[in-house]
């Protein structure tokens, strides 16, 4: 074998290896979790200013729980802010922090009645309801950039909140929000395993926080008094 022939053969091998590696996609699976004891579900346990759980917004006139829509959004951060809500708000004050329209996903979920439940009972009920979604795939290919994963619960149907033909996302109806949780800033392509979603609040009266969480740009929003 001559040197040039060997070189050609070796370069061919290099290209072949590269081609195989490049065409061989590495698949990772990220599973959304709210903690073993549902500690991340505080965002679905908020009450309004009257003390009524906002999940009761799913009840119809006859008191029956209607399906909720769980809307998964990837908020483009354009960087890596801290994880605490204050840090995220501060970051988003001078960054767009808008959901990536192409990656919105929505899945309906049926919550059990929550009226009259104590807080632990309510957490367990919400956890059970969401546990019924186990194995459900939401996004086949997550964006490869720093994002904040947000899940908004709304009494709206999925059809109402899906991406418009013009590529924009319809804002949520704040009156129909039933919960919201979000993750720390994360690069999903570097993650393989569980992704914890939660909600920072120190009180049940956190409807305003849910509203901020579900907002289009994660900006600080004063309470409408």
């Amino acid at each position: 074998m001559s040197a040039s022939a060997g070189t050609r053969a070796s370069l061919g091998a290099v290209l072949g290896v590269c081609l195989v590696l490049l065409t061989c996609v590495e698949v990772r699976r990220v599973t959304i979790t709210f903690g073993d004891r549902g500690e991340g579900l505080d965002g679905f346990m908020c009450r309004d200013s009257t003390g009524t759980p906002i999940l009761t917004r799913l009840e119809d006139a006859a008191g029956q729980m209607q399906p909720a829509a769980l809307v998964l959004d990837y908020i483009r951060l354009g960087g890596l802010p801290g994880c605490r809500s204050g840090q995220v708000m501060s970051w988003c004050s001078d960054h767009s922090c808008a959901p990536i329209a192409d990656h919105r996903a929505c899945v309906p979920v049926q919550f059990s009645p929550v009226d009259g439940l104590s807080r632990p009972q309510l957490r367990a009920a919400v956890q059970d309801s969401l546990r019924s979604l186990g194995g459900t795939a939401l996004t086949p290919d997550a964006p490869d950039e720093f994002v904040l994963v947000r899940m908004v619960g709304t009494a709206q149907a999925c059809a109402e909140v899906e991406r418009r033909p013009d590529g924009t996302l319809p804002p949520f109806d704040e009156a129909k929000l039933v919960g919201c949780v979000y993750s720390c800033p994360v690069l999903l392509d570097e993650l393989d395993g569980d992704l914890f979603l939660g909600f920072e609040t120190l009180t049940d009266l956190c409807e305003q926080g849910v509203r901020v969480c579900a907002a289009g740009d994660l900006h600080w929003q004063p309470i409408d008094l």
Partner: protein
Amino acid sequence: MTALALFLAAASATTLGASEAERPTVTVTVAGPPGAAGRIDAALRASPEPVRYHAAELPRAAPPPALPAAPGPALAEARQAYVKADFAGCLASLGGADAATDALGAGDSLTAARLLLWRAACELGDGDQRGARDAAESLAVLGLPPPPDVGSVSQEVEALLARARAAPRPDVPVRIEASAGAELVIDGRPQRCATPCTLSLPAGLHVVRVEADGFETMIRRIAAAPPSVQVRLDLTPASPEVAAAQWTARYGRGQEPDTARSVRLLSTALRAPRLLLFSVDEGRTLRLRSALAVDGEVAARAERIDVDPGQLESAARGLALDVLVRGRVVEPAPALHQRPEFWVAVGVAAAIAAGTTAAIVLRPKQTTIGF
């Protein structure tokens, strides 16, 4: 690794890629126990060196070269003719005047002395005083002792011989030049000096015999005449047959067959421009020596000691390659870093490594999100 393996295979093929016609022929001969030659020959033929090995046997002991037939019958006839006072017949039986020096050149001093004795006697009987004196002079100059049959000649002849021996004659410095180290035999007597050599010889005609390994033996008559004589003798290179006889006589009994002289003789005897001589000394283990001669001169030597008898073949291959490289019969393979193929292989390996790393780093990822 793959690229390096390809490179090494290609490099080996390149080293051995010389065509059959370009491969130098190396004559291999083995001095050692029976069977060793066959094993070494088979091992070398199977080795990958880019040479053609040609096996040759060591010259075998040959009968000593036949001396010229001693003119015994002629001497007997001359003696009978002398007794019958047939001096002309006596002289005719003795042949030419050079017969005595011819016999001396052949190493037969006795015959030479007898020829001169009877020539002196028959010349004297025939009335040729001068011829008789010349023969007696030659006997004295050559320093030959009177032969046993001196008692068969007349007292007049004995007196002539005695006068010739007693006659004063000057010593003449004779310088003899020939191939360095040639041995001299003057008038049938070996000399203790090798050429170039200056000897003091009595004035007169002498017979010089010059012997040297690798050359034909030369016999010359020289006339030592005052004040001095210088003789230049150009020896003729020996024929393979003569060289074989010389090697057999000197080294045929196994004494130091790999000395420079021995190897030079063997090169001529075996008609081997490139001769690889193995010497195998048997013991509990083997001692293996090799000498490579190129155009008769030892170009390289190597030795292995404590060779396991079962490893004779591999040791011989190693020794052969060693001396062939050091004797410049084959070029050593260039160092790895001096081969272009090496750097091509390194470049290809680096490209593969870089490509693989890049491909791994840039490998597309698909992350699915779900509950």
